[in-house]
């Protein structure tokens, strides 16, 4: 199928969840496996309609564990893959997220966050999966997580997620929230040839070459990837493994492997990180907010400025890696006096902000089910 069939170029009035699905199609999604869950189901339903029509494969699985396992398998066979879920399903996926990180198979998982824990408020907004996304599977590993704040960014950042997953061979998330997922706004879809595409690195030697080691990394710490059925006869295992991919159950192999898995994101963080700065040049108080909360914060900054408060905003578009370099620059620029962190959880991103500054950090929290209003944020900015 031509890329043009996948990319519906032009201006649309589009649901955030549908924009995410369209972004995945534009990014070259080949294989989707999923399980219905509010408030992400519209992504799945949209792809059930659209993906087979452009030559892709759509599978409804028996649960979220099967969904993530299936996309890892399809990606190991060369497919660009995605699944979408919400908190309860995201929890079920955690073990296999660790597998994808360990065997370095690129996957994209969309988590449309709802008020949690447990079943929580299934149809209402939450932003409380931020730390789970980073630390949810056991052990040390690295992930990349994008946080769109509009349907347009659902489209754009889903494409970015596919490219980052392939470039770094790490589990990559699109952490939407229910408000953004269920919001309908203008979405501009560019022409097919304007969709950015970064492919995974492929072996430079032919199958059977004794020089091919499936887990020998290049200077960027990422190894080229051979797929099932190409003749390379790869072995992939969640056990600690050497450059051949063979289990090697020693502390030395483990140290080398796990450090590389973490470092390939840590040392490339400045290339991966995305953020937006709003009126921070002279800001004395900077609000750090993402997703739907950043929309309230943007309004709050404007309202505060009308009251004579020199306010600005840092909006992380990647939660992981966190934009810590720019945060530190703001914290050390001699103008910023404090930060305000509104978020629809009880202080998850706040912890991350506090880690990078000694300035006062004011929390503004709601556990979920409602947005934080601009007035509440203005009040915190005025403190």
């Amino acid at each position: 199928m031509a890329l043009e069939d996948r990319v519906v170029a032009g201006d649309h009035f589009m649901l955030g969840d549908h924009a995410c699905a369209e972004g995945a199609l534009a990014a070259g999604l080949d294989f989707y496996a999923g399980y219905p869950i509010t408030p992400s189901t519209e992504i799945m339903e949209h792809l059930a309609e659209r993906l087979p029509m452009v030559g892709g494969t759509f599978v409804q699985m028996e649960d979220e564990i099967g969904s993530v396992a299936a996309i890892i398998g399809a990606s190991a066979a060369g497919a660009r893959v995605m699944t979408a879920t919400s908190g309860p399903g995201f929890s079920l996926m955690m073990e296999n997220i660790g597998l994808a990180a360990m065997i370095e198979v690129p996957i994209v998982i969309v988590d449309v966050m709802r008020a949690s824990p447990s079943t929580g408020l299934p149809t209402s907004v939450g932003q409380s999966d931020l730390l789970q996304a980073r630390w949810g599977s056991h052990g040390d590993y690295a992930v990349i997580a994008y946080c769109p704040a509009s349907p347009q960014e659902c489209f754009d950042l889903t494409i970015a997620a596919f490219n980052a997953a392939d470039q770094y061979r790490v589990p990559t998330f699109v952490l939407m929230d229910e408000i953004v997922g269920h919001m309908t706004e203008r979405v501009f879809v560019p022409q097919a040839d304007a969709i950015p595409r970064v492919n995974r690195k492929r072996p430079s030697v032919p199958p059977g070459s004794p020089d091919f080691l499936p887990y020998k990394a290049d200077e960027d710490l990422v190894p080229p990837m051979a797929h099932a059925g190409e003749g390379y006869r790869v072995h992939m295992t969640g056990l600690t493994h050497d450059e051949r991919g063979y289990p090697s159950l020693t502390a030395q192999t483990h140290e080398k492997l796990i450090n590389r898995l973490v470092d390939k994101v840590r040392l490339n963080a400045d290339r991966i990180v995305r953020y937006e700065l709003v009126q921070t040049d002279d800001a004395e108080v900077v609000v750090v907010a993402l997703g739907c909360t950043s929309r309230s914060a943007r309004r709050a900054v404007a309202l505060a400025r009308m009251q004579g408060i020199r306010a600005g905003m840092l909006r992380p578009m990647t939660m992981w890696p966190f934009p810590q370099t720019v945060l530190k620059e703001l914290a050390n620029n001699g103008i910023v006096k404090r930060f305000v962190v509104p978020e629809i959880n009880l202080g998850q991103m706040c912890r991350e902000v506090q880690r990078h500054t000694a300035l006062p950090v004011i929390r503004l929290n709601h556990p979920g089910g409602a947005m934080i209003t601009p007035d509440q944020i203005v009040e915190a900015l005025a403190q």
Partner: protein
Amino acid sequence: MSIGEVVVESHPSDTLLRADRLPHILCAGCGIGSVIHTYVDAIAASGIPLDQHVCVSGIGCSGRAAGYVNVDSYHTTHGRAIPFALGIATYRPDLHVTVISGDGDLTAIGGNHFIHAARRSVGLLVLCINNFNYGMTGGQAGPTTPMSAKSRTTPHGCWERPFNLPFLTQSLGASYVARWTVLHVRQLRTALLRAMNKEGFRFIEILSPCPTGFGRPNNIGDGLSEMQNYLRRCEVNNNIDLHKVDIDLTHKDSPIYVGDFVDVDRPSFRPHIAHHATAQ
């Protein structure tokens, strides 16, 4: 001759196995090695190029199978070999994907995926090496542990009814169902060859000795004794009603039925093609 002495320089199966990973980790008397060797023997005889075979395993002793075969091979998470393999087989229907895993991995923690893959007729060959216990963790009971059998977690005997796996998979619509033991390597090889060249969900239960985890607490003796037990008790019956093939260890004279039980035509799950057919 001492242990570890090189007797021959090469073996006919060296190119089919990851010989550089041998010796394997399995116990003396374990039957998993026989399954792996019969599998690669069938691969060689299948006429299907080696590079079109893919082997996927879960976790456990049998889950280590993928690590020893010289094809694209994936050692995944506990219970998730089947959905992982579904991803490969559905995206690349030209590949011949075999899942080799244990009874606990496939039917306890992975039971949900097992029944749904069979129901969907996913194009997979699933080899369930049934040694009646969790061997890797030291011999605990699982959903195939026979009534009254002792294990580390059933020290007073197992009083849960075990799965009858051939009956289960037949009811789910598998296109091929067989049960053999590692004693029956020739019958197993024939079954593997037949199953490799079929569509749909194909299932072979392979009873295998586990002298360390199952034989010892149940006074079966070593691996050879368990094989002799199979020799004495197994009864080939290809046409038996599968609700009668429960494995009963409490009555020493009751037969263990083996055979090629089900062989029907059922196309493999092809979501892409199905969608296209209806979209036109």
